[in-house]
């Protein structure tokens, strides 16, 4: 079952009179349960593609479908609704709300979705336990290490039971050990829950975890292969 489908998508940015084509006619389908890496050098369009899939942005032309629904022409609030129930995000810079505790950060999507208090509590503690952060629930981000913050971010992304989690350079600000720890958690959760993971990275240590690798260069998909075909990262 497809979770996301991108058809001939272009995205151009205008800065003054200068127009930059971030994506040029990209077409891609993401199936349920995938653990897919978008790879490529800086400026290849990985983040832009992730933002379009995540309904954070709209294409200049082309269509984006999430769970079969065309999201290419939704307004800002409609896209927020789509994200809230369907898509989770993990950012490079952890992106936790600094005035909220780990518990409250994970709880935020559930609050926005109107879950009852008891239900929220159970789900949040379960998620924090799954990322080994249950004992740090009452700590604020400035009291957590980078790796701990990213684990909380993964838990928050999973909170609304999304069908799709998008991670933009999730290990870029982590050391090797923490980076691997976060990737292990994401891999495990992908297998346990069946949630689709798509992450953008140019870190070879992270790419090895992916079962599918989509390579972008200059805004185009230049390669789309299963990881088993990769001689260096065979699974």
């Amino acid at each position, binding site marked *: 079952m497809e979770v996301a489908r991108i058809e001939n998508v272009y995205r151009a940015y205008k800065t003054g009179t200068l127009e930059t084509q971030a994506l040029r006619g990209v077409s891609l389908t993401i199936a349920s349960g995938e653990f897919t890496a978008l790879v490529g050098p800086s400026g290849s369009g990985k983040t832009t593609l992730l933002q379009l899939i*995540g309904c954070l942005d709209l294409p200049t032309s082309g269509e984006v479908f999430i769970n079969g629904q065309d999201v290419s022409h939704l307004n800002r609030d409609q896209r*927020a609704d789509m994200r809230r129930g369907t898509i989770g995000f993990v950012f490079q*810079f952890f992106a936790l*709300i600094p*005035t909220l505790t780990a518990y409250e950060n994970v709880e*935020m*999507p559930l609050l926005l979705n109107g879950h009852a208090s008891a239900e929220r509590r159970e789900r949040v503690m379960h998620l924090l336990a799954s990322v080994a952060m249950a004992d740090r629930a009452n700590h604020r981000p400035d009291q957590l290490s980078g790796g701990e913050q990213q684990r909380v971010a993964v838990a928050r992304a999973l909170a609304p039971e999304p069908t799709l989690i998008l991670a933009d350079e999730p290990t870029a600000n982590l050391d090797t050990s923490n980076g691997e720890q976060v990737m292990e958690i994401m891999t495990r959760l992908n297998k346990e829950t069946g949630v689709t993971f798509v992450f953008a990275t140019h870190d070879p240590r992270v790419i090895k975890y992916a079962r599918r690798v989509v390579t972008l260069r200059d805004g185009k998909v230049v390669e789309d292969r299963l990881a088993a075909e990769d001689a260096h990262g065979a699974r």
Partner: protein
Amino acid sequence: MIQLLKMAFRNLGRNRRRSFFSALAVGMGLALLMLFASFIEGEMGSAIDSAIRLQSGHLQVRAQSYDEGKTSLKWEDLIEDPDQVAAQIASLAPVRVATPRLFASGFVSTRNESAGVRVYGIDPLSEANDPYRIGMLSGEFLTPDDREGILIGQPLADKLGLKAGDRVSLSVNTSNGDVQEQAFSIRGIYSTWTGGFDGVTIFLPLTKAQAITQAENHASTIFVLLKDASQTEAVVAALNAPRLQILTWTEMNDVIIQTEDMANSYMGVFYLIVLGISATVIINTQIMSVFERTREIGILSAVGMKGRRILAMFLAESSLLAVGGIVLGLILGGLVVAYFTRYGFYIGNFGMTGILIMDRIYTQLTLQDTVSLTMMAFIVTLLAGLYPAVAASRLEPVEALRAEK
């Protein structure tokens, strides 16, 4: 809602100093307005109170043809047998005191100076004349049978260089249009701390005033004080006097009341200006907050928070700043007003034509003023926070996420 308020409170705590000074700006604006409002209320209250105590009373009963501007002493313009009329009025339950008074115009002369005066013939024993009795600075108060004594105000005494016991010549108009002159002794010098009144008003016993003006058993007015000013209209309705005119204190002091109404309407604009200036601090604070938290707004949007909820979050912060500012303002303003309620502002002989104002104003802060100023401060502060909140709610998530932390 609770979560929003919790987040708003914590967000304000990120920069406690900035939040405190922002709230303080609102608070100082409110405190200033409380002081202004209480001063206006005190000033106008003092003017009304002075006018009632010293000039108009709550009611005056006069002959139908009497014209205060002409100070007529013709018998047909005066009240005959005023003691009986006063006694009848005093028998009404809401009436505290009713006393006859005779008004005349004249001038007081010494060897070198003279001054125009307004002559009040009063019953020295009446409670209505307590303000003058209490205000005696030197000498003695009048007695009903005093044939040669007058009381003058301190400003008049200063102007003519007089003291208690000095002799002066008093010339007054009479009922047949003549001028009667007689030598009098300054029995005493009084002060009501109202320069506009004290400088021109002298007192004689009523019987002496009637004699010198040839008004005989007549008076210009029956001066009435009530136990409660709200009973004025009821007493007017109860008084059945077809040959007499009854004037209420609102009619006799319409200049003061109109001045107060005008002052209140101008002050309303002034209040908004002051609060608007305070509100600019809030606008600046919140714009800075939106700018500093642009990426965070993008994150909230990414996890599915809609624009109106982001708007609500920033408005919640403005509301908390407003509440904090109001609390500070009420404390600060309350302390300042309490001080000037006790010790007053000394303004000296600040006179306005037609309005008596004491030389010291005691502030009076009413509950109505406090509530309306508080609500005004809250609304203005909230409106000030609206623009930054709308700006935050309209940020595109992808643009916000690109912002520098």
